[in-house]
């Protein structure tokens, strides 16, 4: 049972600072996902918690204990690596039991813990194989099994699913979530895939360039992004962004199109803003969700369609910018066809045009 606290944690490689003074509090039993584009410092942060990277500044606490100077084995953590990192010369059984053997547990205890983990991850028929004779998904499960046999206080996952194909990834995602519900231990999970982050996390930590941009529940970061980066990074397809200027109670776009300022924003006249709207909130009339309280309508020519079955993605041009819209109950749409779209204004966002920060108070 452990909380994890990061206090002003810094990582430098020589003169190069790659993680800048990060603060994060993780509750006991919480499933936290660090997400961000590749190279933003997620792995480095995780590895500092694991003890595989030195900490250049600040403090890491696990279960109330400062662990900055403790080796990994004294931190009561276990880690699942992206490339599985199995011991190729050991069988599945030996791989699973290795940490317990090192901890000098009795053979009976080791067998019991290993069999239990094998049961949970359905590895029982594979116990005498070597990793070389396993498929990617099976190796991944062995790596997870190796992590759970020790009952650590904190699980660390570094992009554990990125080497699996899409179908297996979805499947393993569910398994990881079930595992967390069963074990109830603290998990820090790193991924660059926002869908993985959204589906798994109790709380998402969005990172960019060694900074934390936003921390919140999946719905919170989806509905209230603090800046354009989070807005476009979380959610698929990415949020549409349009540059405009506030004129009274409207926003004027470059080509003169006018849209009302979304409710909840009070913005001075003449301020340059970025207007953000997700495809889910811009739909052709007649193929949309029921009308809400604050609606606006625009007419656009459809350039391209992507039928997805239950819905179709429409690519159109609004005020000189390509935007993506969603069509429910789709019908065939000709390229070049002009359609009227309704925009749900209460789901739209305004950001500072310069800093990208949200203008919501």
């Amino acid at each position, binding site marked *: 049972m452990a909380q994890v606290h990061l206090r002003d944690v810094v990582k430098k490689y020589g003169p190069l600072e790659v993680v800048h003074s990060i603060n994060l509090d993780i509750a006991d039993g919480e499933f936290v996902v660090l997400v961000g584009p590749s190279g933003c410092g997620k792995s480095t942060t995780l590895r500092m918690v*694991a*003890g*595989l990277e030195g900490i250049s500044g600040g403090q890491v606490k696990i279960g109330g204990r400062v662990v900055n100077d403790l*080796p*990994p*084995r004294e931190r009561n*953590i*276990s*880690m699942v*690596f992206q*490339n*599985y*990192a*199995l*011991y*190729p*010369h050991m069988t599945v059984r030996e791989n699973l039991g*290795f*940490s317990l053997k*090192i*901890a000098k547990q009795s053979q009976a205890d080791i067998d019991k813990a290993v069999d239990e983990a094998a049961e949970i991850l359905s590895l029982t028929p594979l116990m005498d194989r*070597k*990793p*070389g*004779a396993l498929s990617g998904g099976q190796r991944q499960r062995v790596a997870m099994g*190796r992590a759970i046999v*020790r009952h650590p206080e904190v699980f660390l996952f570094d992009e554990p699913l990125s080497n699996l194909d899409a179908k297996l990834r979805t499947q393993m995602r569910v398994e990881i979530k079930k595992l967390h519900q069963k074990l109830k231990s603290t998990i820090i999970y790193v991924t660059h895939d926002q869908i993985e982050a959204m589906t798994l996390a109790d709380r998402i930590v969005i990172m960019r360039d060694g900074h934390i941009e936003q921390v919140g529940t999946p719905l919170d970061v989806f509905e209230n992004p603090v800046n354009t980066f989070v807005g476009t990074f979380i959610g698929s397809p990415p949020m549409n962004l349009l540059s405009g200027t506030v004129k009274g109670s409207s926003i004027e776009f470059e080509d003169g199109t006018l849209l009302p300022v979304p409710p909840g924003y009070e913005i001075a006249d003449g301020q340059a803003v970025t207007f953000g709207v997700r495809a889910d909130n811009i739909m052709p009339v007649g193929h949309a969700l029921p009308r809400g309280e604050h609606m606006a309508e625009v007419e656009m020519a459809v350039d391209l369609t992507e039928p997805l079955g239950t819905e179709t993605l429409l690519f159109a041009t609004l005020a000189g910018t390509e935007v993506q819209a969603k069509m429910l109950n789709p019908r065939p749409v000709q390229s070049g066809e002009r359609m009227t779209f309704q925009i749900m204004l209460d789901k739209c966002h305004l950001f500072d045009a310069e800093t990208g920060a949200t203008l919501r108070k």
Partner: protein
Amino acid sequence: MNRLKLPPWLVLLLPAIIILSAVVLIPLVLSLYSSFTSYRLTRPDSIFNWVGFFNYEKALTDVKFWAAFGRTVLLLTVALNLEMLFGLGLALMVSKVTQGQRLLRTMMMFPMMFSPILVGFQFKFIFNDNVGLVNNALQSLGITDQAIPWLVDGHLAMFSIIFAEIWTATSVFGILILAGLYAIPRDPLEAAKVDGCTAWQSFRYVTLPFLMPFIYIAMAIRSLDVARAYDIVQIMTNGGPARRTELLWTLIGRTGYVDARMGYANAMGYISIFLAIFFTIYFFKKLTQSRKELGMGA
């Protein structure tokens, strides 16, 4: 057109066949044949004097031959194991060095750059009982006032030869094991750290299994080398004193060229080659096995 028509594959292989027979086949057949004769270098016509298995029987019942055989196996075992240990230590230390590693790696190879004959002369001087470095150093330090007969006493001479052998060849192990260290993936080592291993345990359970194929390759190469050891011994002790450091090939060389009994020497040579072949096959078996352990190869 009435030219001799050879099949094209034979025409294409002909140059290789000619070169191979000139370089390998003819000497092989000739030496094998001569081991069944009483061929003496001083009486060329004796090469037609067929004696059947007489030379082989003589070698297999000759105490001197078996003594040299045993000594060669001893040298192989002791030198190879020590070279492996020292090479491993050297490689581990060099791999930890962060600055100037290239320079160190180059320096590691220095001993391999000298002809074994020169190394033999050098160590003959170093271990000389009157003017040698070792005795001089020991006497100056006041450790002894005797002139220790490094190359004259049977046991000490063997020790000196092993010492020289190790000096020249430890770097073979060092370099190959270093290559092995570079090839180890980082992930399993990190997993071992997280799994609770101390540095020693990581080495024992993860690093070493990864290094074993490299160690066996070095062993195979070096076993061939040591099994045919000749030059260093010839220079340092000439098989002496009183044949106490006689190895297989110094014995064979002496029999063939000094005593001029080439037929007998060739017979001993063929028996000796089995020793080298045995060790090589043994280490290759171990190599295949250790690679299989790691899930490499079939």
